[in-house]
């Protein structure tokens, strides 16, 4: 269905552009099992969805702090990400709505000798907001910014694998890597790495906010708002429709919802699932729901007792009724996880078997196998990990009882959760916003030497495969390797991937859009350039 759906969408877009007649479209639609009526309405709404230039888009974002900085290395969340990257800037590459990497500032990119070397070509005629053309020098400076000795950048560890980074002529940048990495283009699509103008002293100018994006910075008040004006000579065709885009930091979800209802903003992220039904009934608003890469997990330290025993680990995996949690805590907004951190929409994702669904008998059996009658342990949670971490844990506690597992839920302070609990306590709630590639995800959190290996899981086979697959350019082989890795992690790993959360966001009906990307919230954080007003 998903496949045809995409086809249909594509067709629709053509139809709307007039490249496809209404009849042709309808036939296509019927062919793919859609009723005539449905097809007509689809066409009609699509026609209505025809982009119009202009208008002001106001977006309410549930993040933003007074400490937010223009330094891309420090972008903590959606607010800075969407406003200061997705709206204002571009990286070398971009992940499109279907999860493929495509060029952005870079026109093209080529691997060499087993993906150990990558050559990026800077797009012709692309300029900064101040009119200055973008050169390879700027690109190098922008990325070097994160590599610097005393860099505080979150991307620093991402770029570790780069051994040399140099400009080869005005529009060519050459990367040399420690080992082959077929997915390197994905890496440089990260929102921490926008391309910024180089200063004369060789360092990069991140302060001024001069970038290459579809909109130029008007005003940025950390923790309050950021506003942007259209960039008339943007390098992408048919992107950036609005005259002006404003981001408001509205941390209180109720306030955010009210602002949307009262029409003071046209778009909000992170809807309150509790009130979604009411929201859906609002005549002039639409709720969009995308299951992204992000996943809510509980991770155990596999080096600590009793979690050092794989059977115990699996018993615990079987003791959670994920459907019930999804149903009750997340009111069905998300996709049940199967202890595999790779989202279904990611390339090479598989669904390992047997699925870890609620099964008290299996759990007890595994416990017995581990020589245990009952099991009792502390679970440290806080909603700082992910909204609903506490409720889910409490619900899980109930489920686990039936499996002879006594979970002692400890509510930790939100403040400093990531410093004092995560990676410290043996069993904690955690969250990964996900990564666009298997390699990236695994390298970040499950490789033996990963900085954030929050399960402390070191599986030799897994790590070999990881290295091997990285430089493997044969798609089929890679797929196989990745499949095996995911299986190993699923069977042996210390993570309980409860579910992939959906980005539940709401917007005014007057807004139009194409297929919504799944890699980040707010249409891959690039809503400002991808969406438009239909009326």
């Amino acid at each position, binding site marked *: 269905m998903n496949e045809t759906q995409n086809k249909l969408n594509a067709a629709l877009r053509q139809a709307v552009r007039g490249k496809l007649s209404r009849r042709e479209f309808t036939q296509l639609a019927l062919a793919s099992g859609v009723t005539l009526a449905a097809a007509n309405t689809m066409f009609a709404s699509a026609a209505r969805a025809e982009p119009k230039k202009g208008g002001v888009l106001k977006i309410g974002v549930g993040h933003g702090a007074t*400490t937010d900085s223009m330094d891309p290395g*420090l972008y*903590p969340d959606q607010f800075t990400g969407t406003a200061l990257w997705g709206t204002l800037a571009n990286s070398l590459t971009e992940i499109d709505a279907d999860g493929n990497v495509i060029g952005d500032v870079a026109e093209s990119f080529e691997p060499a000798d087993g993906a150990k070397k990558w050559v990026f070509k800077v797009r012709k005629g692309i300029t900064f907001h101040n009119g200055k053309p973008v050169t390879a020098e700027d690109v190098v400076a922008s990325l070097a910014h994160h590599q610097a000795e005393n860099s505080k950048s979150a991307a620093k560890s991402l770029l570790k694998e780069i051994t040399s980074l140099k400009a080869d002529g005005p529009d060519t940048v050459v990367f040399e890597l420690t080992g082959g990495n077929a997915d390197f283009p994905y890496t440089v699509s990260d929102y921490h790495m926008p391309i910024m103008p180089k200063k004369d002293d060789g360092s990069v100018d991140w302060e001024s906010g001069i970038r290459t994006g579809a909109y130029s910075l008007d*005003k940025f008040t*950390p923790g*309050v708002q950021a506003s942007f004006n259209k960039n008339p000579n943007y390098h992408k065709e048919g992107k950036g429709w609005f005259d002006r885009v404003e981001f408001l930091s509205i*941390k209180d979800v109720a306030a955010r919802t009210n602002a949307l209802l009262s029409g003071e903003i046209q778009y909000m992220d992170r809807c309150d699932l509790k009130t979604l039904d009411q929201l859906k009934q609002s005549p002039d608003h639409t709720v969009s729901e995308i299951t992204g890469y992000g996943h809510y997990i509980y991770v155990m330290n596999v080096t600590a007792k009793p979690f050092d025993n794989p059977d115990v680990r699996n018993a615990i995996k079987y003791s959670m009724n994920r459907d019930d949690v999804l149903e009750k805590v997340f009111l069905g907004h998300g996709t049940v996880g199967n202890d595999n951190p790779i989202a279904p929409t990611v390339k090479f994702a598989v669904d390992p078997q047997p699925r870890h669904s609620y099964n008290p008998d299996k759990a007890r059996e595994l416990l017995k196998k581990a020589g245990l009658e009952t099991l009792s342990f502390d679970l440290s949670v806080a909603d700082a990990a992910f909204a609903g971490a506490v409720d889910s844990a409490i619900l899980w506690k109930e489920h686990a009882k039936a499996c002879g597992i006594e979970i002692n839920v400890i509510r930790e302070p939100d*403040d400093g959760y*990531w410093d004092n609990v*995560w990676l410290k306590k043996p069993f904690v709630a955690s969250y990964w916003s996900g990564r666009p590639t298997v390699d990236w995800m695994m390298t970040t959190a499950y490789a033996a030497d990963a900085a954030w290996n929050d399960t402390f899981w070191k599986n030799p086979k897994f790590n070999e495969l990881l290295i091997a697959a990285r430089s493997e350019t044969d798609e089929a082989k890679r797929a196989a390797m990745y499949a095996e890795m995911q299986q190993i992690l699923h069977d042996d790993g210390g993570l309980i991937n409860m579910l992939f959360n959906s980005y539940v966001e709401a917007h005014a009906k007057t807004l139009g859009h194409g297929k919504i990307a799944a890699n980040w919230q707010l249409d891959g954080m690039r809503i400002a350039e991808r969406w438009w007003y239909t009326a």
Partner: protein
Amino acid sequence: MHPVLKTVLQRLGLGLLTLFVVSVVIFASLELLPGGFAEAILGQGATPETVAAFNREIGLDRPAFVRYLEWIGGVLMGDFGYSYAGLGGSIKRSVSELIAPRLYNTFFLAAMTAIVAVPLSLLLGVLAALYRNSWYDRIVNSVTLTTIATPEFFIAYLLMFFFAIKNKWFYTLSTVSGSTDLWEHMYRAALPAITLTLVIVAHMMRMTRAALINLLASPYMEMAQLKGVPRREAIIKHALPNAWAPIATVIAFNLAYLVVGVVVVEVVYVYPGIGQLMVDAVSSRDMPVVQACALIFAATYILLNLSADIVSIITNPRLLHPK
């Protein structure tokens, strides 16, 4: 004005002392807070080296008391230092410029509320004392009680629902910036102001009533009655002048509350006030900002109480004209 002057100076002295204690207390509890600025900013993404880089830059690697002394020294020079955020970059954010607009907003809202709330509560209070146990009294009492009794944010949301969503008379968002003009600002701040008014009027009105009623029993009120002064005039002319002291105190208390206690309302209406700034700063461990906010809050509190004391002096002949 001698006794007044004396008290003022005395209180100012004590005030400074208090400020000092406050700064120590705040600094200490900040030091105790789990995690530092770096961890707070980087969150899940914190790695030892980045954290180290941060701390080196901010100077958090030096002992606490050194940092405190430096800070207090700066304050004495009138320099509140720089926010940790943006340090190291070429654009430092000085605490004062960070706070100034927020403080303005907070005071704006406070003033707006006070202008309505204070006279209103006095009026209601006097009337309630006048017509004690009348229906008016009972109704005003119950209503104010209920407003006291309901969580602020609940009231806030209700108002929002009725006046901004059901009938779009006001904005749900009170986001204002330096560029918003006065009227716009007032309009945007209207709902928060109403909420706060509801919250504090209750308190002030009840205290006014109580203060007056306490005096009704005093012999000179009976005397006034026996001199043929009608009750209304008696209360206004004979009771009120003696009730100012307690009333002033409670007003001061509530005004202080308007400045320091409105975080919740700020959050609900997304009003960029200083309360939210401080909460943010606390959660991000931005010490200079927190300290500055705390001092401002403390100072406000002290000054308001001082003025309350002054009022009670100048309205009390015993203190104003000693024998």
